[in-house]
């Protein structure tokens, strides 16, 4: 099995699916579904074949452009493999949710599958050149999906999304060109090793002068826009609310994780000491992301905008955990335990937020379809009575987003706070407010949409039909499963966490 290039196969598979679906028109959704299921199964196979010590496994290494240090280098550890599963899962959910695309369905599903391929490529590449191609490539299908199938203000939203992310990417590219100029390497693992033993800093200093901090800032800027970190988040509410809901699911479930993944795979290992040096301002920004995201969500009236800001808030916890980890502990055991808890929490939160947020936008798309496009919270009321199953299942997803113990959303957030509190108690204490406000926001949504008197126009609001229940059941099941038995993920993520922390230097 290990002789098969599984990571290449999983990246090529959606590309082939995209090519087929371009020419199958009405049947393209079926093609996309089959491709999506195949990718999900393959990602689970990859998950089962991870090395037990948490290091990067399933590596594929070929020369590509040797004169430029460009190699075809793939590999995943617990973090990468979990992101593969998440991408495959969210893509499949998105394809399931997009059953009412009448305008050029072939192109739509081809772009969705290309985006999936972009995600797979980003989460498996270990050479900057190769990685950057996929990082940029995933933008293009996303841009066209928003631009061609989006809401009334899709044009500006798509352009802002594209340009904003490009600006971040350019900063990232410049930094890596400088690093390549100084070291002659583009390989993440090599560069991380050089950063650990100090050669990277010395070579950059020798060939470019004292610019290491600027390089770190450039790399951070690229990821900060993608995640996003406040105040670089303003593209997000517009893009999330103008994109068609299945695409919003991909944006929040998959693409937002690219930024967090990049911080963990690239920024922390290569620029650890620099990030540790500016840890306090970064923590301030992370706390700001959490607090302002939660409160800005409270001010919104549009369901999609509420959960767009709520996504900012939830990813803020990931950033909080990441920046809190970036501190030199000097071998202090209890601090190392806290770092491990926070990092486990960050990785779980990435997965759980992806799953829950994608489910929420799926439900919103159903509400929109049933109400003829409405999605203001004040337009509804009492939907619990005409559509009890709908209200119940969406309620579970909402409570998962709120962080109710027993559902998946709780586990990651709890571990992050468990880890961050000893490392930076002020940041943790202020951020807890975000949990409180998010709870208030989500309960307000439940109150306004599902309870109270039923307006006459919604007296016959249709409940979930068989097909929708069938599609949602596994998602809701997973929400419970990961909430009650998070060990099934932690047992494979924790070795990677230990491995990473043992190799990072701050």
């Amino acid at each position, binding site marked *: 099995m290990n002789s098969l290039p599984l990571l290449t196969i999983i990246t090529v598979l959606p590309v082939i699916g995209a090519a087929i679906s371009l020419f199958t028109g009405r049947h393209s959704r079926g093609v996309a579904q089959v491709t999506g299921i195949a990718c999900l199964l393959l990602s689970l196979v990859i998950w089962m074949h991870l090395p037990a010590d948490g290091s990067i496994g399933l590596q594929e290494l070929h020369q590509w452009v040797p004169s430029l240090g460009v190699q075809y280098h793939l590999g995943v550890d617990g973090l990468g493999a979990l992101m593969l599963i998440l991408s495959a899962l969210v893509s499949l959910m998105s394809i399931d949710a997009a059953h009412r695309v009448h305008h050029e369905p072939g192109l739509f599903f081809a772009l969705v599958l290309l985006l999936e391929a972009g995600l797979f490529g980003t989460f498996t590449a270990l050479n900057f050149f190769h990685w950057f191609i996929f990082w940029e490539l995933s933008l293009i299908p996303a841009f066209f999906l928003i631009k061609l199938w989006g809401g009334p203000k899709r044009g500006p939203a798509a352009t*802002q999304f594209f340009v*904003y992310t490009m600006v971040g990417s350019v900063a990232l590219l410049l930094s890596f060109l400088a690093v390549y100029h100084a070291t002659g390497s583009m390989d993440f693992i090599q560069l991380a090793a050089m950063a650990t033993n100090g050669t990277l800093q010395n070579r950059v200093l020798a060939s470019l002068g004292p610019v290491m901090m600027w390089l770190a800032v450039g790399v951070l800027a690229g990821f900060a826009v993608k995640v996003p970190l*406040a*105040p670089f*988040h*303003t*593209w997000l*509410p517009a893009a999330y609310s103008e994109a068609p809901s299945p695409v919003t699911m991909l944006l929040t479930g998959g693409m937002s994780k690219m930024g967090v993944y990049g911080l963990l795979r690239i920024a922390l290992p290569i620029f650890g000491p620099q990030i540790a040096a500016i840890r306090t301002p970064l923590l301030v920004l992370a706390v700001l992301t959490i*607090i*302002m995201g939660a*409160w*800005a969500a*409270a*001010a*919104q009236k549009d369901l999609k905008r509420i959960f767009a800001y709520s996504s900012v808030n939830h990813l803020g916890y990931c950033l909080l955990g990441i920046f809190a980890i970036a501190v030199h502990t000097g071998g202090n055991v209890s601090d190392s335990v806290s770092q491990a808890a926070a990092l486990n929490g960050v990785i779980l939160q990435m997965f759980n937020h992806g799953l829950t947020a994608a489910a929420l936008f799926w439900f919103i798309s159903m509400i929109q379809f049933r109400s003829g496009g409405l999605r203001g919270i004040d337009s509804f009321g009492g939907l619990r009575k005409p559509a009890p199953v709908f209200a119940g299942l969406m309620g579970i997803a909402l409570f998962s987003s709120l962080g109710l113990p027993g559902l998946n959303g709780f586990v990651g957030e709890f571990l992050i706070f468990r880890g961050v509190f000893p490392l930076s108690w002020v940041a943790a204490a202020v951020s807890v407010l975000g949990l409180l*406000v998010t709870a*208030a926001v989500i309960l307000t949504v439940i109150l306004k949409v599902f309870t109270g008197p039923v307006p006459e126009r919604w007296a016959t609001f249709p409940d979930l039909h068989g097909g929708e229940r069938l599609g949602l059941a596994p998602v809701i099941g997973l929400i419970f499963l990961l909430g009650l038995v998070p060990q099934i993920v932690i047992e494979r993520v924790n070795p990677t966490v230990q491995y990473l922390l043992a190799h990072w230097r701050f």
Partner: protein
Amino acid sequence: MSAGAIMRHVASASGSTPALTVITWVGASTAVFAALIAVAQNDIKRILAYSTVSQLGYMMAGLGVGGVAVGMFHLITHAFFKALLFMGAGSVIHGAHEEQDIRRMGGLSGPMRITFVTYVIGMLALCGFPLFFSGFWSKDAIIESASEWGISHGPFFLLLFGALLTAFYMTRQVSYVFFGEYRGHGHAHESPRVMTTPLAILAFFAVALGALGTPAWPWFRGFIDNTAVPFRMAGFNEPALLVLMLISSLVVFAGLGLGWWLYGNKSPRPEEPDALQKAIPPVWTVLANRLYIDELYGATVIAFYYWWAKVADWIDREIWGDMVATITLLFQGWARLNRFLDATMVDGAFDKGCEEIYNGGGVLARIQNGRGQIYLRLLALGVVILAAILIWSGRP
């Protein structure tokens, strides 16, 4: 009962004096605070709910001044007699045809005999009626510890005042519900056995549990501290203890008496103002509005929440959004400038050059009009000119 988990936490976390001091003060003030509110409520379950908050205050204070054994003992006894009272309230509500307003009850001691007897047992246990009720022993242990507390006597007096209030509001409630004439709708009736049997069982414990915590045989304290406790009557042989028991008994009697004096057997009409309201209107107003705590939260925490949400949204749109818009405008301006430069300077020069070439081309093009004679004439002209040049240049 939910207090149990918190108390175990506090007990294991504390040990330091400042923490216990805070716990004591918070507990004692909660005991009085909630009891005050309970005085002026008319919903039978709401009175019991505020009473529960008040008793949780006693437990916290007990924890602070006397340790785990003292706090936990009141927690256990309270669990039984408060469960009894809430179930009794349920029986009353059921018997009075789903009425929860105590002003629309009255005289239920007749038709609801079992509920009445058990409810009064629970009420006396809650008030801390001397000697025969568990609440007396558990609350007395707290008050005794508070009197010996080295830091301040404040909590001791607060807890005594709370005991007075407890006896008062429970007497008020029982008078309204069980005495006087029935003022509700229909005919009240006793609840079925399935409801009254649990009441009787709980009433038994509301009395009997006291035996586990008397000064003569403080079994519960021994259980918590994991020591064997012998029975010895000499436990009562402390003058200070006896004085305290007397004081707290007198306080309870005062509360019961005051309540009965104001409310006993009066059967006021439902729309009539409360007896206390007639006596001291401003106090009643404040208490009936629950000391305006809900309004305070509304004006502070809730108002802040909505205000800050607006601010966050505003910052997002006006500050960050405008910043992005400004940068966009700058880039657009730069692009316009470039276009202008291209169009006027670079393109202008290029166009000028092209124009000249074109104009020049036009003159030449006019000659090439395809007429043989013109070509021949030009040819001849050329030959003549060349010949002239040759002759001219060949001249010596």
